[in-house]
């Protein structure tokens, strides 16, 4: 187990990157603390897998340093780094039994057969694979195969971290849930750092102590799930985290306050903010509606999606801006109806040039 530190670490697939754009992973400083669970979240092609592969050593970074507990491992091979990695598609050794699969990494490390047996028994119990140890691995279901992939990482007693590259993509939704819980349990019991790559935000939020959001080869923000939700550092994070995404409204500057015509807000403190490219963001969950009164913002309902317990309303403000509201209200809402919209001052986030002010 180790603390993994990225020091100005970047990677370009080009031999001579001309500018930042040529980097799949732009140089970044980041520390993965020992024993925590992390999620690496971002859209496809944002550099998540590149970052993971540089950590596991399948890829040698073109730039910067990688430190495990302060030891420079930038140029060492995968085997020396003691990293376990689980891939999107379950990888098993088809000719071997479950037991054979689990003991393979230890055989490669020339362990004593007696110790291998003991260790495999421990890990298979942890993964609840102990009653199918002697079945041929190729006959198992996808989620069991994925557990074997994970188990091959866990049997080694020297694992620094387990890297999971979208491991739940091919698993049934039902099994996904229990597998995710199992991953957390294993983390608690063994204290092994886990890094999960995913593009599914609910997966990331429910799995990780800390979520790292990436876009365009750059780390956008890292923090606890509720931090990302409540205080996104930029509009991308606001947009990417949360479903539906954050609502962005135009604002005008009037004396010392900001004015948002769509929500009829006029008393947002301006502080030191300069006019121009200012926006405010409000989560759809933080907006509430009621029957129209004499004052306050009005909006027209354009669509209403019923998600069972939640409703998502698409609304058009009086000044033409479009936004969404997520609500638990049970009443039926007709399209074309006018509603009064309100928001608490603490839930209004001000962005300048796309960054949280």
């Amino acid at each position: 187990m180790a603390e993994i530190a990225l020091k100005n670490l970047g990677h370009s697939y080009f031999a001579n990157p001309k500018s930042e754009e040529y980097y799949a992973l732009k140089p970044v400083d980041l520390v993965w603390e020992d024993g925590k669970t992390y999620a690496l979240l971002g859209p496809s092609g944002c550099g998540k897998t590149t970052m993971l592969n540089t950590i596991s050593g399948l890829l040698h970074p073109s730039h910067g340093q990688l430190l495990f507990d302060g030891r420079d491992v930038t140029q060492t091979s995968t085997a020396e780094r003691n990293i376990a990695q689980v891939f999107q598609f379950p990888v098993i050794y088809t000719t071997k039994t479950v037991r054979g699969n689990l003991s393979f990494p230890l055989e490669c490390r020339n362990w004593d057969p007696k110790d291998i047996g003991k260790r495999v028994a421990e890990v298979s119990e942890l993964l609840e694979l102990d009653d199918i140890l002697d079945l041929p691995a190729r006959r198992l279901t996808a989620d069991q195969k994925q557990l074997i992939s994970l188990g091959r990482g866990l049997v080694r007693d020297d694992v620094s971290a387990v890297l999971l590259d979208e491991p739940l993509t091919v698993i049934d939704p039902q099994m996904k849930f229990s597998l995710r819980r199992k991953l957390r349990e294993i983390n608690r019991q063994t204290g092994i750092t886990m890094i999960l790559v995913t593009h599914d935000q609910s997966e990331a939020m429910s799995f990780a102590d800390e979520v790292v959001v990436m876009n365009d080869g750059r780390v956008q923000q890292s923090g606890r799930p509720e931090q990302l939700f409540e205080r996104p550092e930029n509009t991308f994070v606001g947009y990417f985290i949360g479903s539906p995404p954050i609502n962005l409204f135009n604002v005008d500057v009037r004396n010392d306050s900001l004015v948002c015509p769509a929500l009829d807000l006029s008393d947002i403190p301006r502080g030191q903010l300069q006019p121009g490219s200012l926006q405010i963001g409000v989560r759809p969950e933080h907006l509430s509606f009621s029957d129209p009164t004499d004052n306050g913002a009005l909006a027209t309902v354009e669509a209403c999606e019923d998600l069972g317990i939640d409703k998502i309303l698409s609304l058009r403000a009086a000044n033409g801006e479009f936004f969404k509201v997520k609500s638990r209200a049970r009443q039926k809402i007709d399209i074309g109806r006018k509603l009064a919209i309100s928001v608490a001052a603490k839930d209004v986030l001000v962005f300048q040039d796309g960054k949280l002010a």
Partner: protein
Amino acid sequence: MLKPKHFFLLPALITLAAIILFPLIFTVRVSFSSWDVFQAGLDFIGGRNYVRLFEDTRFWESLLRLSGMSFITVTLQYVLGFALALAVWKNITGGRVFRVLFLVPMMTTPVVMSVIWRTVFHESLGPANDLLSMIGIGPVPWLSSASGAFISVVIVEVWQWTPFMFLLLLAGLVSLPREPYLAAAIDGASPTRTFWQVTFPLMAPISIGAIIIRLIEASKIMDTVYVMTSGGPGTATETPSYYIYIRGLRDFQVGYSAALSLAYLVLMIITLTIIAKLLMRFLVGKDD
């Protein structure tokens, strides 16, 4: 219901019947006759040809010889082809030239190629013995001794058909997924272990396909034998197809050679099916 559109199938059906069905049924009929060079005609002699076949040791010997020859040549072709494919697979820069070069033997006309090899193996005039004499070996009786002739035929077969194995196995290797190799690297597997635990099992289905195709082809081996040794010396390189050729087209025992052909066909179908099943079980696993 017969509709006008079905009549458009007729040309194809007639052709099919004429070139496959008719010869097959006719052969069956001929195999029950005593048709030979003295008395051509379709009489009926019952199963006498088949009884004679069971007592014909020359036929069974040739079958045994063929089994040995196929086993040796196909095994060598598989091992060499796999080795070459692995070599070219990793190193892409020089690969293209080699890929084309490797295919030359396969594209050469069998008779032309056999004539060239017969010259190479000529005892006093061929370059093979000339080269061997430089390092103090020989002269080797390549084509005039029983074992020499057998080995010569094996060498030529391997030389000609290894490229085919190479091509099929390379295509298989190129299409393998990347993840298992990454996983093996993470598990700390050495190159040898990676080959036996990852590459070889993943290649099993295509290996079986390639081996079966080659076995079918090898069981029909005829032109190489005909040109290089004519089955000799004695019957040292005589294969069933060549023996059937002798009985049918040299001795003109048409009825008997028809019986031989059918017996040979049935034996081949049974044997190859069993071999395919065994290979599947051995390489892929019981339940597939």
